[in-house]
């Protein structure tokens, strides 16, 4: 019997690289390089895959004098980077998941201390022929800011339609809790449905705004479609999204962030560089957009009292201790 002794350099047949893999060797190497890249670097943001602005129907809106000197953040920043915890706590989660929310038809329930209460269609609340554009500074409690061109109507105009009575000292807002469409609400990150509130004189201030659009277009879902509050002198979380319930109340209403941590999030939540969040400074903010690249990444500026809207709102708080009533 012939015993074949293979020389030491031979390798077994099954160790040979399959021909298909050999033909693809360059792609495979490129794949490894890419995998190495993801290991070493954070994953790219969601900005690349966002629907373009042109996908959203345009709105007709009158220009107004509400326009800061700072340039606006780009569409990609406004619609690709924000907080909407109902869709997840990541900054790109809203852009990825909020499309699930059904926003039409939409009704808003008006309740509490007012002459006219009941359920109203969005179109009965908002006169889409009387929209205006307001370019506001938006300051998040996390110490970043953007300048955003909103489209909508003054909040006071809408609230007055329901003739709030003399007991209506506050107004509370609720975000729609669409359990099946909001994966982030499976876990109680906050008290759902999300709720916010204003003192009635804050709500009637000309600066308080109800937005139905941004950048001259219908609001993308991640930005709070179809109806959201914008109160630019307060931290961003006061500007509640996708409102489906408004309640006029006699007593100061509950707000989700205050219920979650009263020490960190007060009822008023006015932008105030002199009162720090217990965990970080509020003295300055990172400016998101309009600059990009390296300079954009490092752009910061000092935070202004009432986010620069002191002229319009400071009188609402005369004599109040803003540290205590933060």
């Amino acid at each position, binding site marked *: 019997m012939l015993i074949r002794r293979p020389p030491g350099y031979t390798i077994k047949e099954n160790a040979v690289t399959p021909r298909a893999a050999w033909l693809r060797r360059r792609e495979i190497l490129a794949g490894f390089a890419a995998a190495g890249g993801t290991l070493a670097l954070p994953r790219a*943001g969601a900005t690349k895959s966002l629907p373009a602005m042109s996908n959203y129907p345009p709105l007709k809106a009158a220009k107004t004098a509400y326009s800061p000197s700072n340039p606006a953040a780009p569409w*990609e920043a406004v619609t690709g980077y924000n907080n909407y915890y109902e869709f997840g706590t990541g900054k*790109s989660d809203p852009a990825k998941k909020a499309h699930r929310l059904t926003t039409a038809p939409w009704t808003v329930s008006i309740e509490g201390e007012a002459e006219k209460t009941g359920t109203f269609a969005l179109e009965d609340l908002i006169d889409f022929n009387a929209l205006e554009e307001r370019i506001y500074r938006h300051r998040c409690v996390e110490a970043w800011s953007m300048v955003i061109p909103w489209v909508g109507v003054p909040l006071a105009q809408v609230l007055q339609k329901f003739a709030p009575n003399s007991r209506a000292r506050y107004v509370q807002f609720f975000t729609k809790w669409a359990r099946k469409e909001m994966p982030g609400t499976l*876990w109680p990150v906050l008290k759902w449905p999300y709720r916010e509130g204003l003192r009635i004189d804050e709500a009637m201030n000309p600066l308080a705004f109800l937005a139905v659009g941004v950048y001259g277009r219908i609001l993308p879902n991640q930005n709070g479609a179809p109806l959201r509050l914008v109160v630019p002198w307060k931290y961003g979380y006061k500007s509640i999204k996708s409102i489906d319930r408004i309640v006029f109340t006699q007593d100061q209403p509950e707000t989700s962030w205050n219920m*979650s941590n009263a020490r960190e999030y007060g009822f008023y939540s006015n932008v105030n560089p002199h009162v720090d969040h217990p*965990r970080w400074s509020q003295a300055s903010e990172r400016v998101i957009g309009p600059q*990009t690249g*390296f300079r954009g990444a490092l752009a910061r500026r000092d935070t202004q009292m009432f986010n620069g809207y002191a002229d319009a709102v400071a009188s609402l708080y005369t004599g109040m201790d803003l540290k205590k009533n933060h």
Partner: protein
Amino acid sequence: MLLTGQANDLGVNPIETTNRFLGDTALRVLLITLAITPVRDITGYVPLTRFRRMAGLFAFFYVCAHLSSYLGLDLFFSLAKLWKDIVKRTYITLGMSAFALLLPLALTSTNAAIRRLGPKRWTQLHALIYPAAILAVIHHIFMAKGFQLMPLIHALILAFLLGWRMVKWLRKNTHPGA
């Protein structure tokens, strides 16, 4: 990111993205390091132990990168600001303490250091990874807004990994000779 300037690949807030990613990775690699011993015990695959020290150094590498990005990109290398943060903000205090506990472990990670300290003292010193990991997990819990799930998952994994060691230690000490 710093070299290419392609900051927009990291979203519109690249500093936050970088810092979060490095922190998450540091914590996860630390947990992987702590998982090596239990996995070895369960599978009986002893050679795994050889990777433990290397995994620990990987974790320390990400800890350093996370600390540098906070110090450099967030604070612009202001040591005064760093000190203010350490004193004032609990989660920074915890994070910096975890770093301080891990630093001697990284410094004594060479074979020569094991010889110099002796295996017993070296092992005792390297038990500092346990309090460091606990501090790191609390650091993550404290910096999250609201009641978030991910920091709790990390805490649960750590509790299991430390619990495993506790049970092993108890068994060894309640049944001498077993």
